[in-house]
């Protein structure tokens, strides 16, 4: 975990799991695997993410009973059934609100939300943005396959415009969301993107997300082999991925291409960022990634390099990680402060409360 963290260039802040009890006993992926048969389609990207999570959770060294996975509705939302932790497969779009209740009620739990692009960005969009702005201590894994799978193939809020699906026979006319841009606009304190097929990167991002105190949003590009196969092929193809993936590492210049011949520079015309050839602009002018910049402007500009249409190019890594107080920590602090000023026992205080105000006695 520490190694992965270093690899991504993220120093440690107050940890997301610091109040969760740990165990010295060795844990394995097997312990985190429930006895339920996994029922995703063959070739589904969800398998890879499940394997990565089952392999990664033991690294956290937490007591398994103090981990809770909450999901909404959709293919990916079956996730909690396959993990032998506490879990709730809830209703469509509402997982962040349920997780907010869990995380606020219990500082000793590591709380995870598993959701999809339809679940979190369409029916549950409101809960997602409010969880992000409140900064509740939880990690949200947003499986983005850019399609509705469980309802059999309608376009989703991340599908490219013009997409022909069962519900859009002559092409969709919706402009898609860019989940990273949306999260940054919603005041998120941690925003990252990774890919289902890159287990090493995925695990590293998960480690950083778990270590983040506050709401961590991780967008995972995930292939749906049935209804949207190949949506991320450019990011995975041996010939294309070097030009398609723009890796973000904190403190490092943002370079990509087979020979690291391309990089990001500031665009003085738009105020954003753009791709340039290193040979033309010089390495010293290449933008150095700063995930901890309190100002999200550059992170947002980088997020805009993701194609809104068919995906040929996308930044991958941690866009933003800043520390700010979490909702749940502050809620508990307010309660602790109030309790510290009242030494009396609860029954005695209840009697005082009921007898407060204008009272009169009948004898």
């Amino acid at each position: 975990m520490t190694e992965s963290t270093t690899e991504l260039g993220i120093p440690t802040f107050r940890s997301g799991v610091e109040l969760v009890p740990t165990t010295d006993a060795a844990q394995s992926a097997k312990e985190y695997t429930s006895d339920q048969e996994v029922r995703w389609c063959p070739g589904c990207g969800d398998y890879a993410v499940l394997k990565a999570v089952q392999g990664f959770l033991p690294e956290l060294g937490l007591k398994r009973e103090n981990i809770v996975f909450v999901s909404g509705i959709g293919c990916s939302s079956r996730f909690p059934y396959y993990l032998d932790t506490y879990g709730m497969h809830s209703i469509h779009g509402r997982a962040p609100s349920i997780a907010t209740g869990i995380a606020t009620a219990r500082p000793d739990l590591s709380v995870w939300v598993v959701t999809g692009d339809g679940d979190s960005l369409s029916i549950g969009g409101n809960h997602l943005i409010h969880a992000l702005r409140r900064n509740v201590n939880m990690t949200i894994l947003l499986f983005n396959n850019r399609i509705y799978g469980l309802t059999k193939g309608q376009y989703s809020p991340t599908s490219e415009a013009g997409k022909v699906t069962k519900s859009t026979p002559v092409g969709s006319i919706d402009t898609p969301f860019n989940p990273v841009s949306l999260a940054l606009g919603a005041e998120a304190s941690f925003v990252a993107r990774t890919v289902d097929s890159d287990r090493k990167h995925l695990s590293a991002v998960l480690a950083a997300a778990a270590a983040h105190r506050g709401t961590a949003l991780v967008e995972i590009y995930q292939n749906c082999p049935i209804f949207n196969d190949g949506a991320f092929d450019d990011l995975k193809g041996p010939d294309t991925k070097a030009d398609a993936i723009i890796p973000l590492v904190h403190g490092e210049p943002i370079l990509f291409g087979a020979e690291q011949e391309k990089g990001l520079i500031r665009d003085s015309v738009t105020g954003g960022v753009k791709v340039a050839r290193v040979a033309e602009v010089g390495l010293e002018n290449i933008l150095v990634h700063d995930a901890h910049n309190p100002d999200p402007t550059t992170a947002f500009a980088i997020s805009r390099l993701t194609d809104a249409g068919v995906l040929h190019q996308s930044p991958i890594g941690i866009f933003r990680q800043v520390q700010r107080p979490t909702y749940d920590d502050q809620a508990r602090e307010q309660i602790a402060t109030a309790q510290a000023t009242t030494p009396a026992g609860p029954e005695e205080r209840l009697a005082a409360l009921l007898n407060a105000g204008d009272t009169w006695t009948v004898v």
Partner: protein
Amino acid sequence: MGKQVKELDRVVIRFAGDSGDGMQLTGDRFTQESAVFGNDLVTLPNFPAEIRAPQGTLPGVSSFQVHIADHTILTPGDAPDVLVAMNPAALKANLGDLPKGAAIIVDTHDFTARNLQKAGYDANPLEALGDAAGSDQAGPLGEYQVHPVDLTGMTVEAVKEYGLSRKDAARAKNMFALGLLSWMYGRPTEPTVSFLEKRFAKVPAIRDANIAAFKAGWNFGETTEAFAVSYEVKPAPMTPGTYRNITGNLALAYGLVAAGVRSGLPVFLGSYPITPASDILHELSKHKAFGVTTFQAEDEIAGVGSAIGASFAGALGVTTTSGPGIALKSEAIGLAVMTELPLVVVDVQRGGPSTGLPTKTEQADLLQARYGRNGEAPLPIIAPASPGDCFDAALEAARIAVTYRTPVMLLSDGYLANGSEPWAIPAVDELPVIEPNFATEVNHDGKFWPYQRDDATLARPWAVPGTPGLEHRIGGLEKADGHGNISYDPANHDLMVRTRAAKIERIAESLPPLVVDDPSGPPGAGAAKVLVIGWGSTYGPIGAAIRQVRQAGFDVAQVHLRHLNPFPKDLGDILKSYDKVLVPEMNMGQLSMLLRSKYLVDAIGFNVVRGLPIKAAELADAITALMADRTEETH
């Protein structure tokens, strides 16, 4: 100067003015004075949904009615005996509710041409009075005892030494009116003086002006010849104990705090502001020292969602709302039915459908509470009968939710929420104890089965995260009986639907027998042949109507339901013991429908949906008519 003092056994006073005139505060203070004095009382605030509707207009009128008596009373009174009207709109809006001969005190200051026009008066109704009082020429006020008083002018005069602007000075007119009424009914003044001292402690000029206006109002009553008589309403005999005046929303919030204390569970409220339920959120947010967490969610769904999450994590999850909010929460409440987690859902009902009448009362969410979810999703429903009873109802809702691992719907309403009554403060150690009984051990051959039920209650175990060895997954998909994994098996679904229903029915085993109020004898054996059955806030009006009918020499029985699902086990026998069953409700017959479908009784509805409590006199007429009908049939 010795004035005549007349003794009254009861009086109904309504303070009415513009939304910004402070009528709610005035009424509330008069109520507190009366409570401390020892009268029995019931109040009815009535205000517009708009915070400040256009000044001086009919929609902007806000009123507060208080009924005080030297005996036990049950309602805020059908009609005011005294109206205090601060402007022409307040007079016009309330005049229709007054019986002939009622007293009206008007602030003449606001009877300007412009205000009269805003209220829709072509001519000043006060001028028509003149010498013509009592004659045909006396205009719309001819049949009342009208006291025109320049309340504003005298207020401004009384507070001039405090150097306030004219506008600020005039704002103390509500305290002048309160002082006048306090003199008229011999109310103690100390509580209001000390209230004003505290309330305006930081602005001495305003504090002193309000106190001066209040005292000036009192002195005006004592010295002016305009009021020849003052009244005395003696204290009511009450059961020994310590009392306070309490509104339904406050009692409900206290009940939830008490449920937390008596269960040892931290209370978690997830809520979205909505009239008339928001005051419960406000109140609970003050009680962090009791470990109460209040979460103001982004919407109604997140309110209930967070409460379900908190319950899963081992807290007492609560969500509070009104009818439109229940509609939004329905799917999540269904999730709580399926996952069998404790959850208290408070619906402070208001007029509907849709946005309806946000500040008015109604009981039209009973069927929504009973059936308003997809699938077979039964849940317990309980309803308090009076403002103070909201405290016990909240504790009872928590008891059922925790004991049976189920969402419970608590149906309050706008009248209970804002209305108030004297409340005998209970002793904490006599309140019910609620046992969470968390699961701590495996329960099935070395494994944990989250849906293995308790034989007595049919409740499933509540295993909270952090408990080693009991890791499990729950969710909205159908569960296999026992181990709780996903199951699409037809026979299992049939079994689980029936089991969830049986669990709710099982709650009836824990309910006390119904109390039938029938002085003529045991149910069906006495002279009473008509049974009046109600639920929720109609308790007061029904009781008052029953009294009127009995005072007229007739026999009639009454029973009131606190539990609407499941019904108490003896309800069917009681219903069948009477020839006729009358069901007064502030809806179009929702309890009637439930009683008819379950017990095959010919329940007759008395249905009023005016956004206000049922009037006792109208109901008494209906009861009497029903009895006459019976007499005709037998002859």
